[in-house]
């Protein structure tokens, strides 16, 4: 059974009086452990697809199945639980909670899950150490560089050991050096943790390292290719 299965998925938005189709008739299956990039020009539907796969948005038609369950059948609470247990998000703007330290930000998904504070803290520290930013765990986001913030965001996405990590333009706000480090870090984590990664990107450095590339244009899948020896 694929981890994620999209069948005839269409997503339309209303913008004032007009209806905009962001994604149309998309069929995709993604298996566990894949390292997938959704790429294409701006407005091609990459982020919308990420949102649908990550269950923070629902399709206008078609079905999104995660682990064989149609997400449209889940209540809002069940979707929240699913996101907390099975999905990790990495955002382009990092989206760290500004009043929490790096450590507290990483602990957040576990706090929401009800994991005991001591245990959550231990997990978060381990992960921050693995990502090489343990020294900055007491810092708040505004005291961290862009690369450090993105690592914290990655740690937060991974701390709950999700089956799937969705990263929307994770390198867009990073300089070249940091972008490369983040890309190779995610590659390593994909290998070591077996976590499925799905990126929305048009960063060539990232595209060169993924095992599968899905090209989107005008909300449709135009090309779905796998490349050996990536990461």
């Amino acid at each position, binding site marked *: 059974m694929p981890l994620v299965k999209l069948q005839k998925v269409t997503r339309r938005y209303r913008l004032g009086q007009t209806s905009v189709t962001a994604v149309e008739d998309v069929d995709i299956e993604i298996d566990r452990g894949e390292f997938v990039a959704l790429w294409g020009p701006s407005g091609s539907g990459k982020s919308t697809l990420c949102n649908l796969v990550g269950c923070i948005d629902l399709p206008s038609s078609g079905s999104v199945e995660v682990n064989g369950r149609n997400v449209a059948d889940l209540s809002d*609470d069940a979707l*929240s639980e699913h996101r907390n247990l099975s999905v990790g998000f990495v955002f382009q703007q990092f989206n760290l909670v500004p009043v929490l330290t790096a450590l507290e930000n990483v602990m957040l998904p576990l706090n929401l899950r009800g994991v005991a504070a001591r245990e959550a803290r231990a997990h978060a520290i381990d992960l921050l150490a693995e990502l090489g930013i343990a020294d900055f765990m007491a810092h708040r986001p505004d005291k961290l560089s862009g690369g450090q913030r993105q690592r914290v965001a990655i740690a937060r996405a991974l701390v709950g050991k999700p089956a799937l990590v969705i990263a929307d333009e994770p390198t867009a706000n990073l300089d070249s050096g940091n972008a490369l480090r983040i890309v190779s870090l995610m590659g390593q984590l994909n290998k070591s943790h077996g976590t499925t990664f799905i990126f929305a990107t048009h960063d060539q450095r990232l595209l060169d390292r993924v095992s599968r590339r899905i090209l989107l244009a005008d909300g449709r899948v135009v090309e779905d290719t796998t490349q050996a020896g990536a990461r």
Partner: protein
Amino acid sequence: MWTWIKLGGRNLLKNKRRSAFTVGAVALGFAAVNVFGGFTAYVYRGIEDGFIYAHANGHLTIFKKGFLEEGALDPASFLLSEEDLARIHEVCMEDPRVVLATPQLRISGMISNGKSSVIFLGVGRVPSDEIAIRRRAGGFVKLLRPFDGQELRDDTKQDVSAAPGLAEKLGLGLGSDAIVFAPTIDGQMNALDAHIVQLVDSPDEVLADKILIVPLEFARSLYDTTGADRMTVLIEHTRDTAAVREALDVRLAAAGLDVEIKTWQELRVSYFKIRNMFDVIFIFIFVIVFIIVLLSVVNTVGMAVVERTREIGTMRSLGLKRRGVLIMFAAESAVMALVGCVLGLALTLLAVFALDLAGPTWIPPTITRRVPLQVYLVPEYLLLSLLCLILLAMCTAVVPARRAARIDIVDALGHV
């Protein structure tokens, strides 16, 4: 929950000015409610203690059944005999909560300076019991000496106490002699010589020219009786009034005594009128505080929701449920209200301390002398206002927080 409290506390510090406004509103509201509440508690205590102790009416009064309805027309039939009084005293003193039981006799008649006479309304008391009752007063009433002149004494039967207005009407003063006339219980006219040794404050303005307090033996001689029309009972704690009344009711009935018991509240009708008036003012102040806090919290949380829309979207994408968003903002408001209440407590203590230091005086209701103006710290009010304000802040936060909880996650993440 600790995560939300921590988050709330830090967000408060992040928006210092806005938080300060709301915290200040809560603090002022808390202080206003508690300073006024403390003042009303002081007034209530003054009225209670004034009636019970300063005017020696005790907590409970025992009458022969029907006295209050028909006793004025036929006082002789409703007097408690010496034997009744002795049995009532014995039954009362069996209850360990009773401190003292003492007979009193209300009298009325004329008092004369030899040339002119005026009507008086009097009471005959056992002077030593009256002193004992007064000495048990607390608060400012303890400091109050509600008369000029000297104490009445058990062994000087002719020494009496008159209200200043009464003495003034007759041109009498301390040390003056007078003649007191009244019909005996058999209807014969009787007269006794009296010596004014005390000018006593009247509990009510309308009685300021009518009150005469005499030793019980004087009153009995005047009415030619060995009885009394009531037994005044003083108990250890005012809060036990109802319980002691209930217990005495049962015991007195079991002893075959056809009597009825009234509490001090039932006899001091104006107490409830004054209390109701202060309660209405208190509610008025509380409603104003309620509205100010409500508007401040709605404003603060509403702005926080707008400013932190992206953060809410992030939290929701991490798995925070809609209910969790409500809890997050409710916890933040609770922290804000708690800080406000702590500050409000400091303001209240400051006000109480400043008042103690300044020592202003005033004449409260039912007391005719200047006494220190005080504000009591009432733990029940402090706790109740703390809980009310925190609950109010939490409930108020739910309105904007519900809006936050319903924000579409994708829209929230794209919010700038």
